[in-house]
């Protein structure tokens, strides 16, 4: 979450993650009611809110990061903070800050029209989620509204690191390949290099959230080097596979 433990540390962490070989960084905008998140991300959001993080400050932080790193940045939020900010203003300010796109957890494709059109006007990517529960018809719609990549949810449930990969990931990625030529990223429950090894042939990118935030939580005093080391350790999982980095995808057009 952006602002956990504070905005300045998040900015340093993003730069360090990029140096550690992370292809895209998702910046979570904290929200008081994180209905899709497990305990680790919930606690991170609470810390971020307590540190005073909010959308304007996060956009300012994106500007600051852009002075140091071209790493693709995806804003990741629940709908209400963005709705309150205003879609038009959000898209304009996001592009001005140097962000590459956004993903709104609780914005269904059915309700996404006004948001997507403002994002398109500014040339920002809109990433949507695909779930194991999504029908093929829904996957088609998710792919149509997504640009940059599609985010495949590996398991039905809330966010959280798991020891074992979900069996639902592979069939979902297969169905998505049939529905779209966009790159596919897969997330939810991914916490170990072996998971990356296993997913590398199936997806174009792997999203690690809770496992990274848990590392941050365990090293609140000095999180930046630990989190960067953790990302390097995870990337070991790709060494055994030929990996086409996802930042060759359209999201890296900025």
């Amino acid at each position, binding site marked *: 979450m952006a602002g956990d433990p504070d905005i300045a540390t998040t900015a340093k962490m993003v730069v360090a993650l990029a140096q550690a070989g992370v292809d895209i960084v998702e910046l979570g905008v904290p*929200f*008081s*009611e*994180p*209905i*899709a*998140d*497990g305990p680790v991300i*919930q606690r991170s959001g609470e810390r971020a*809110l307590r540190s005073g993080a*909010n*959308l304007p400050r996060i956009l300012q932080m994106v500007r600051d990061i852009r002075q140091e790193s071209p790493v693709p940045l995806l804003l990741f939020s629940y*709908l*209400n*903070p*963005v*709705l*309150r*900010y*205003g*879609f*038009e203003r959000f898209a304009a300010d996001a592009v001005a800050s140097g962000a590459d796109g956004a993903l709104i*957890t*609780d*914005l*269904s*494709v*059915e*309700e996404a029209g*006004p*948001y997507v059109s403002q994002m398109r006007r500014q040339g920002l990517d809109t990433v*949507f*989620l*695909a*779930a*194991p*529960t*999504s*029908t093929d018809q*829904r996957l088609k719609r*998710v792919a149509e509204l997504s640009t940059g990549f599609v985010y495949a*949810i590996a398991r*039905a*449930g*809330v966010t959280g690191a798991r020891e074992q990969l979900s069996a639902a990931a592979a069939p979902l990625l297969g169905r998505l390949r049939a529905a779209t030529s966009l790159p596919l990223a897969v997330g939810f429950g991914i916490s170990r290099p072996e998971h990356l090894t296993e997913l590398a042939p199936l997806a174009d990118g792997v999203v690690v959230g809770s496992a990274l935030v848990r590392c941050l939580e365990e090293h609140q005093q000095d999180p930046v080097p630990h989190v960067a080391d953790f990302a390097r350790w995870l990337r070991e999982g790709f060494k055994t596979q030929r990996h086409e980095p996802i930042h060759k995808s359209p999201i890296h057009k900025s």
Partner: protein
Amino acid sequence: MAKHSINKAVKGTDFQDQPDQGGHFGLYGGRYAPETLMHPLEELESAYLKACSDPAFQQELEHLLSRYAGRPTPLTLASRLSDHLGGARIYLKREDLLHTGAHKINNCLGQALLARRMGKGRLIAETGAGQHGVATATVAALLGFQCVIYMGEEDMARQRLNVFRMRLLGAEVVPVKAGSRTLKEAISETMRDWVTNLENTYYLLGTAFGPHPYPLMVREFQKVIGEESRQQILEAEGRLPDLLLACVGGGSNAIGLFHEFLAEDAEKVAMVGVEAGGRGSQLGQHAARFHGGSPGVLHGTFSYVLQDEMGQISATHSISAGLDYASVGPEHSMLFDSGRVEYTTATDSEALEACRTLSQLEGIIPALESAHAVAEAVRRAPSGKGQVYLLCLSGRGDKDMEILERELRL
């Protein structure tokens, strides 16, 4: 803000035709949920629509409503209260007499029958005051479901008796310790359980709120309140009431009463919904969404929400746990914007005083939620000479004895 998110405002007498196919009540409602829940919501909607057109489903529901829950509920003329106030004649729709002590059972029976048709074995629900939790635990026992109720720790403390009732009925009550530890957090936690256990679990949402089809479905299961009321007031008075009154938390008892009368001219049948005014008008001290809230998305629907300028959801306060929530059913937001329904507030102390008044003049102890509607009747009735008021007494006050004892010091 937010005006762009939407389709069309509703005018005139279109109110009864809402929502549209996407679950929109004019500008409000809809289905704002994580993708994992979207198809389960589609499945729920189609199972619900199928059940609606199945006479066997309707028959079984009606049977349970009458033989198990105790419908129809009476319409009681509150003579001494009316005389005391010296104006309008006040009738009480006695949902407090239903099994489990509130209107919540109407919806729980309907949804539990639906859950059974969908082949689910486990019911989960959020609860604020515990009335919906008790009603859910009750239907779970009746129909043989496993049952888990999420309740904020703060609410568990203030509605201790209902927590024990749920446990006695065989339900597991899970304390929710996040945030303000009230209904808002309990709903978030129930949604997390649902998204994790979709296969065998039915989310029995307790009010006309949340993503489509819940606001529609809950209204339809509660509209029996208004349908009976129309018939009963015509029998008693030979005419329709001049004013309908109901408290509004999520707003299911209110919409259950109002819906039947929405097509009537506002001059003929006026309506007032009463929100929790809490301790004062400062953000965080009340739960009056139409007096300090603005449109936003919380828990799956677009409606009025108490929030700060950054879109973070505000803490709320009410002496009544059942009204203590930061948002409100989307149909009410439509009705508020249109002016068809007026929304007022009653403070904690007004509700307490109204509770004492009704208890001592009528021998009816209202739930603190319903006491907010009584407070509004007390305020208006003196200037309502010759008028007929119909108030939904949505629940009884047994669950509130500890609070009443502490606050009223009799």
